[in-house]
């Protein structure tokens, strides 16, 4: 019994330690080697809705992304680039949705309605680009990407052993 308890406590502690210690609306952003001085975070805010909770007709949450960045170098210092642009990227990387221009400080960019997505900030050749192409400088994942695959947890299907 003590061994079982220990195993369970370890499992819970592991989840607590590795899971996001942020709310369901927060995205920590991580710098790439391209711009190691960059720091940032994003906050997802429900798009304005008379219901408080904004969703599409098929039920996808609609969030406005508020990005806070610092330490972004001048885009031109990275090459032939003039602006930083935020992109919401589907988790299989097949779909890139332009969100808007990001600068040091706080930027409220576009609305995203994907279940799981990456948030990528890239240096781009100009601020109006419709497709991504430059180097990424900050990236993060929506909180929903922490949704776990429980099928793999042996605790649920084979019991916890000492």
């Amino acid at each position, binding site marked *: 019994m003590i061994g079982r308890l220990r195993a369970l406590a370890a499992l819970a502690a592991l989840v607590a330690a*590795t899971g996001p210690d942020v709310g369901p609306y927060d995205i920590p952003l991580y710098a790439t080697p391209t711009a190691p001085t960059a720091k940032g975070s994003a906050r997802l805010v429900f798009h304005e809705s008379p219901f408080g909770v904004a*969703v599409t007709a098929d039920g996808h949450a609609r969030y406005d992304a508020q990005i806070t960045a610092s330490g972004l170098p001048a885009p031109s210092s990275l090459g032939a680039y003039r602006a930083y642009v935020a992109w919401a990227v589907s988790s299989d990387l097949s779909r890139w949705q332009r969100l808007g221009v990001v600068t040091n400080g706080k930027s409220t960019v576009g609305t995203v309605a994907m279940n799981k997505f990456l948030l990528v900030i890239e240096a781009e050749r100009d601020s109006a680009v419709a497709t991504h192409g430059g180097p990424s400088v900050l990236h993060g994942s929506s909180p929903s990407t922490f949704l776990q695959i429980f099928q793999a947890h042996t605790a649920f*299907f084979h019991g916890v052993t000492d």
Partner: protein
Amino acid sequence: MNRRILTTAALLVAAVAATSSAQQHDTTMPAMPPGMPMPGSPGKADTASRRAPPDSMNMPGMSSNSMPMPIPMPKGMVMMPGLVGLTPPGGTFLPGGGADPASVPQVRPRQILRVKDGDTLDLSATLVRRTVAGRPYIMYGFNGEVPGPLLRVPQNATITVRFHNRIDLPSSIHWHGVRLDNRYDGVPGVTQQAVAPGDSFVYRVHFPDAGVYWYHPHVREDIEQALGLFGNMIVDSPDSSYYSPANQEQVLVFDDLLVNADTLIPYGKKGPDFALMGRVGNLLLVNGEPRYTLDAHRGDVVRFYLTNAASSRTYNISFGGAPIKVLASDVSRFEHEQRVPSVVLAPAERYIVEVRFEHPGRYPLVNAVQAINHFRGEFEAESDTLGMIDVDSSAAAPDYAAAFDALRDNAAVTRDIDRYRPYFDKPPDKRLTLTMHGSGLPLATVQFMNVDTAYYAPVEWVDGMPDMNWLSTSEQVRWILRDDATGKENMDIDWHVKQGSVVKLELYNDPKSFHPMQHPIHLHGQRMLVVARNGVRTKNLVWKDTVLIPVGSTVDVLIDASNPGDWMLHCHIAEHLGSGMMTVLHVDRATPP
């Protein structure tokens, strides 16, 4: 983080202690909170019949073909082995005490009762027979109807309602959203005693605000409301242009039932089961029926009065792509009419919308959400067709296309709200944290929840783990409204405000609780404005009585505390209410009567 680990450890210890000695728990019943009397003795159901024998699973988590699971599981998902063979503690209840359904009168469709100021009417809670998915069940209805009679009443009317309890549980009627005399609010333990089976109570109901309201018991809502005791009131403004014009009106009440192959899943006898997230049905009903139909003409504008009477489910309603204009919510019109892609409707909320069906054809009434498949760790689209609107080719008469296309500003609403704007930025007068405490839950549930909460959706649209939910009862789960200033919880909070004051309440839904989920918080007898969500000011205001608080959200509401009395503030998920998530706002009279 440390708090989370400590909580986890405490829960694990409690869970192991509870499950190591026996799989069946000690069922010492805590005192029921006010408004939640225990079910009466007439109802008897067989606890043993709900127990799935351990050998019903031919491999971990898999049901055999011959032994159906005791609880319906989402397609492709199985009951966790650690939960197989368990049943909720506290016994079970179904209405009718085992009577033959054929001995109970067949339910009748809702009738419209047009009442005027000074009228008296009778409402009786009765047993009814309803046939759902081909099976007859004994359920409840008002005057033998589900939904109960639709009361159509002029604004500022006062009516008398003689309520007769003819069911097998204590009951009452709460007039949801109506700013009426506190004595008639219908909350046992706060404003009246529960009406015992066979007894009566007389309500005097005054309707100061136009809009759509509803009535339901305030006793074991998880049973009584869920089984059909609900009805609407439409309060008509004397202003004929109060809403933009429509060709027809429809009053829709959404709810759901949880059934297995041939049984209604019984209810907790001592207190609610499904205490973790509330009972989420697998049969979605509109006006008590599984298939809603409406005939309309090409170009018709239909005004829908929508009410969510479900215990826990939040809906996302659309009309086959037809354009939707939202006009009003709980207690008033919006400042500005607004186009929306769909209507999000939390338990107890109401919205008034207009929909224009421009082309002939069939328009499905759909509830569409992104469900979570916990085992695959993925979102899955889930869409239920609740009904169909058939639009023929004859043209609407009159044609209200132009009026529908226009989005009106309701200056009277804005003027009314203007009086409260100076208070929008005041510091909160009260801050309540929404959380929960679990004790004695099955070990597998504790394991799962600690992993599951690595991600918590702001809104859980469906019950992804009904086995775990089913096995949680109000004996093990205590949902909490915690006063941050005093640390007091639920009914221990002593909250007094003076009549006429404008009170700012901040509600914070703790994402680190054992089971984070959304809560539709309902305040009785007053009206309130949602002035900000997560610090973002609301742009289009409307008076509310119920507000959805997503997980991790902070919602600021401004209460117009104009109506004296003792008023419940509670989560409207019936099982959360039944697990303690309630307090009382005492609005003290400015001057003694």
